[in-house]
């Protein structure tokens, strides 16, 4: 299996442990990922306007590069990138008139992108495609009664047309977690927004969200929480420190990238993961559960 890979900016900067762990597990599962030779920022937030086509060009440029790579699937690890790229494909596919206008703008590219040539894929769907049995076979470490809260956030589930699973009641993360030998913790806030980019200008919104989401996972007995978005990660990990400062009774919860947990369960060298980057140190719980 071979596919293109689009890292996006954050995975090359603040979320290195996400990238290294993800690439390590994929290699372990015999999947070859080839980073696009030349890529641009995806634009982060898909523009929701009808009349401003300039904003759509950033993701389309990347999709052109993916098309030129001659590989059908394009892996986007960061869910923000996944959402933006996948919505760009929908946009290009469904509005011929606007597609033509975008093509006119993009006079420096030789390749024209029409929407069907590239499939953007997230790592959860990819693991499903690789096969849950294969995943199960790759797991070597037995986690001792590890209760995992899977947090989806927004970008994998909304809007409906790009959702990888039911927006109301998704199961894909839990399914993988079960196959990896851990116990699932259902918590009602697993699909709710963390506050997103409002961390920049309205941090109190994010604090409120983090308190609810983390609190709900803790209440339902989670030992740790896993996720796939570097922004959710920041909002739910780093922000816990701010909450702790305000509220001594707050019970923190270690947060990991989904792929970090899988890498540990596969017995891959823990030193490829820099646990010092975590605001809430996951090492005590990982040790307790036999993963370190």
């Amino acid at each position: 299996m071979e596919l293109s890979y689009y890292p996006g900016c954050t995975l090359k900067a603040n979320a290195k442990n996400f990238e290294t762990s993800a690439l390590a597990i994929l290699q372990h599962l015999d999947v070859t990922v080839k980073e696009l030779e030349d890529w641009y920022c995806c634009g982060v937030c898909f523009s929701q306007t009808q009349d401003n086509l300039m904003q759509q060009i950033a993701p389309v440029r990347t999709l052109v590069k993916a098309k030129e790579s001659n590989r059908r699937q394009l892996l986007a690890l960061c869910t923000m990138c996944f959402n933006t790229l996948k919505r760009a494909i929908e946009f290009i596919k469904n509005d011929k008139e606007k597609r033509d206008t975008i093509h006119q703008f993009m006079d420096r590219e030789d390749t024209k992108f029409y929407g069907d040539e590239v499939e953007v894929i997230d790592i959860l769907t990819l693991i499903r495609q690789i096969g849950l049995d294969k995943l199960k076979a790759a797991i070597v470490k037995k986690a001792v009664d590890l209760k995992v809260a899977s947090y989806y956030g927004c970008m994998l589930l909304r809007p409906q047309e790009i959702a990888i699973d039911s927006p109301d009641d998704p199961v894909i993360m839990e399914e993988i977690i079960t196959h990896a030998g851990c116990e699932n913790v259902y918590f009602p806030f697993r699909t709710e927004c963390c506050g997103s980019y409002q961390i920049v200008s309205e941090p109190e919104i994010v604090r409120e969200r983090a308190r609810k989401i983390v609190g709900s996972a803790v209440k339902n007995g989670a030992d740790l929480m896993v996720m796939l978005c570097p922004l959710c990660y920041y909002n739910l990990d780093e922000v816990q420190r701010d909450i702790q400062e305000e509220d001594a009774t707050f019970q923190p919860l270690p947060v990991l990238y989904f792929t970090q947990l899988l890498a540990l369960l596969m017995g891959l060298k823990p030193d490829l993961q820099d646990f010092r980057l975590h605001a809430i140190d996951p090492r005590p719980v990982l040790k307790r559960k036999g993963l370190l």
Partner: protein
Amino acid sequence: MSKNKTISAHRISSDRIDQLHEISGVNVYACYQCGNCSAACPAVEFMDPTPHQVIRKIQLGFIDELTTSETPWICAACITCTVKCPRGVDIAKVMEGLRQIVLRSDFEHGHLCDIDEKMRKKLPQIALIGNFRKTIL
């Protein structure tokens, strides 16, 4: 000044409604005010008016109240409202439309240089760019 607002044919056919429609492409008249968007919105407690009230005010032509309110800037574009709407009203796009109406005359909402240096280094890039995309034209 009276707190009551007059509804008039003139107001409900305001071209500002058309302008918003042109930017967002959303037909707000499908809304029957079930409030599911507001019930589900993760930031609703910071909003006034709340999402369903935003849609109602657009139907009534009170666009000025919306462009001067904080609601569109509180919205985190999580799209929960849109997927919840039983009538297919894309509320997230309406919020974007309102932001754009403001930005297209003011260029910027808030001040980017206000972000402190330490924070800027710590924050993930997508947080910063996401924020810029929503607050600068």
